[in-house]
């Protein structure tokens, strides 16, 4: 358990943002999400299953996602996660605040280097 917490993500909320962003364009099931993030980040980011599923449930509870029964590519039953309007709004707000934070961090780093 401890292991999962240490490696959960870069900072609080990062995993949520990545999940929301990935689902923005296409509803996916859990395993697809893991693969998607891995691919998009060129293997830089690895999502821990120990964090993914509880995070998905948290986001369902917040109303940012909804789940529906679906069939996986292999024809087995699974659950597909889809972004809600509420989720889109939350993502936009989060992205905005992240960008501000990145900008701030970048400036500080630039200043320190100068």
């Amino acid at each position, binding site marked *: 358990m401890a292991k999962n917490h240490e490696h959960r993500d870069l900072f609080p909320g990062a995993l949520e943002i990545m999940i929301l962003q990935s689902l923005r364009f296409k509803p996916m*099931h859990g*395993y697809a999400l893991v693969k998607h993030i891995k691919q998009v980040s060129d293997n830089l980011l690895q999502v*821990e*299953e*120990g964090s993914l599923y509880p995070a998905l*449930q*948290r986001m369902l*509870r917040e109303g940012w996602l909804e789940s529906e029964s679906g069939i*996986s590519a292999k024809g087995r039953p699974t*659950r597909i996660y889809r972004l809600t309007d509420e989720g889109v709004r939350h993502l936009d707000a989060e992205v905005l605040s992240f960008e501000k934070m990145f900008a701030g961090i970048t400036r500080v780093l630039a200043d320190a280097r100068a």
Partner: protein
Amino acid sequence: METVNRLFSRLLGRRRRFDDISVSIQEHIDERVDELMEDGMSRDKAEQAARREFGNRALIEERSREVWQWAALESVLSDVRFALRRLGKSPGLTATILLTLAMGIGANTAVFSVVNSVLLKPLPYPHSEGLAALWMNAPGAAGLSNFDSGLQLSPSMYLTFARHNHSFQSMGVWQMRNANVTGIAQPDEVNAACLSDGVLETLQVPTALGRWFTSADQDPRGAKTVMLNYGYWQRRFGGDRAVIGRSLQVDGKTRTIVGVMPEGFRVVDQEFDLLIPLAFDPTNEKLAGFGYTGIARLKPGVSLVQADADASRLISLWMDSWTNGPGSNPHYYEVWRITPNFRPLKQQVIGNIGNVLWVVMATVGLVMLIACVNVANLLMVRAETRHQELSIRAALGAGRARIVRELLIESVLLGVMGGAASLGVAYAGLRLLAAMGPADLPRLSEVSFDAGSLGFTFALAVFSGLLFGLIPAWKYARTKTSAIMIGANRTASTGRARQRSRSVLVVAQVAMALVLLVSSALMIRTFAALRRVEPGFADAAHVQTMSIFIPEQMAKDPRMVAVMQREIADKLAAIPGVASVGFAAAVPMDGNDPNWDLISVEGKEYPGGDGPLQLYNYVSPGYFQTLGTHMVAGRDFTWDDLEQVRPMVVVSESYARENWGAAQAAIGKRVRKYQGSPWQEVIGVVQDVHVHGVDEKAPAIIYWPAMFYDRFATPPTMDGLRFASFAIHSSRAGTEGLLAEMQQAVWSVNANLPLASIGTMQQLYRQSMARTSFTLVMLAIAGSMALALSIIGIYGVISYSVTQRTREIGIRLALGAKKSELVWMFVRTALVLVGVGTAVGLGAAAVLVRLMRTLLYGISPLDPITFLTVPIALAAAAALASYLPARRTAAIDPVEALRAE
């Protein structure tokens, strides 16, 4: 349980969610397997790898589900459900544990309720912490040193203190007496509390109806008033609110009812029917008359020490302001060295019963500990049988904390269930306590379950659950998973570590049981010592007692009183089956305040002129014979002696020895009260009587004849006892039939005379032993519970180890060990445990029994007989408890034992 389950799920609509999680995760793993197989892995390998990559699936599912739960609460609930299911699977064990706990917790709750009501709750008066009982120390007053509490106040002392003190908001004195109420239906003898000004103001309990006494009511020449207590008001007046202003004949005096006190009101610890103003007349009071109980309310911020100092300074003022009559020395009391010894009222009310209660509380607490140890032992056996299950769960990813929590939940659950069951036991226990509690246990009737008791039960239930759960849980937590797995496999014998902690528990149990057994043995020895005390009367079960008060209104002439009393005695003696009759001012152990006189022996010189204070009693002819108090020398009074008012006296054996060396030597010698009183000849010496109870030393007593010259009256006149306690020796004592005939006999003399304080000497005798027998019974119950529990504990440990070591025994037998040696091997183990436990217990007992010192009589707390026999008895019981299971080894067939594996 299933319904609860469903209710939860439906309520929160989560079953679907939980299915979703499982399906998602299953698909996750399946897809990964597919991928790996595409990479050329075999299905088995791929599945294995996918699972390993995914991690602890059960845990991740749980975490995901927890998002939807009140996480902590619900997982606890599911543990509770699981624990309940498991307990239901082993009903025998569960029932044993619950029964043990119900008894243990129940006993504790019952005793706690008593302690709570009697010792912890404040007195039922507003701001009762400021109330003080006013007692004086008088080390110089020889006879008075017999009193535990000290010297009470005299009216003049009260008047001085009340007028000049700077420490009290209010103060007053009071005295209980019997009063005859006439004019309503039957003549009625009631308890009256006579109050001075300031008592009601000190207690601060408002009336239910009407008003308190005012200073006008305390004017000896003012209007005569009376107040009623709630019970009497209900009983006699049916709670009529128009009672205020009506009048009542009290001892022949007409008094106007001015107020009614509310339900439950008492004057300190005294129940009463009427309140009557004392109405002291300051112009007539003397220094003497130390018969009044004083109470006061301290001013805020004033301590008892300050109040003591304040009153000390008033003692000489008191001696300067009053006298005992012309010619007497007012500073005589300097010899007594009177100093104030004020104490909190609560301490006064509780007295040394507090000691008894704390001992009993400690005792049942110890029993509870022993019970917990037993339950811990049982749970440990269970945890061991569950080793395999727990190991598998640990291997499947259950966290250690999770399993420990589950074990604890199970034990706390047992504790709480036991606690619930204990309420019945506690209720029955309280009824039992109320029935057999000693008379000096104040407010016993008020003891009840309240929020405090329930809180205590719950706290004790949870605490004991944690206590006996922690031992197996802690042991589990210390064991490595691998060790558990190995432990579950077959090894020749149980691991030493596991056996050791059970042994430690047995040692603790034996030690605690020993302490309890030693305490109860000490009480048994005390009780036996008390029973051996010759009380100074005999055949107590067949001596009926009752008292009669003849008020002035009924017989003004004291001679008439004496005539009436003799007539009553004669009529009583004529009842069939009555062997003899006598009367006195007080019968032994009836709790009536003793009376004291200054007595001088002829030919002796005393500092200050007067002899020391001696306890006295007035007795009629035949009184000693009726009580079975035998004459040691000389003779009893005769009616002739009384009627002629011959100057004669009978003394107790101890008084005779003290003054003349021997009983015989006392006959013909003379004593007198004060200087100037006539000398009175000693005509008889009687055996010593323990008038204050068997556990109190028998005091020296002077017996005056029941008719005498009252030298205080002006002019001195013949006087008799207006208040007399009759003793009737009859084989029919205590029967309704005799009582009815007694009533007829008394009423044939005067139909207005009520009979009071009806009982037998046996009852008085038992009452005086009540504190000891109460403690004895409580300790004996606790001691036997402790003994039974620890014997079960020893039996359990040996029996379990025999089962565990069956294989080892088989090998030993196969190798040629003798069966008797094997049996001895187990018994020896038990005896070693008992030996260690006994050593620890003896040490603890030697320290703890000192707390009981005041409860013991005639033996030392370190009584060698007790400290020798109890361990021997315990060892014998332990040997038996271990021999029975050990004998089973003899039945073991080595071939079977080895094949069993």
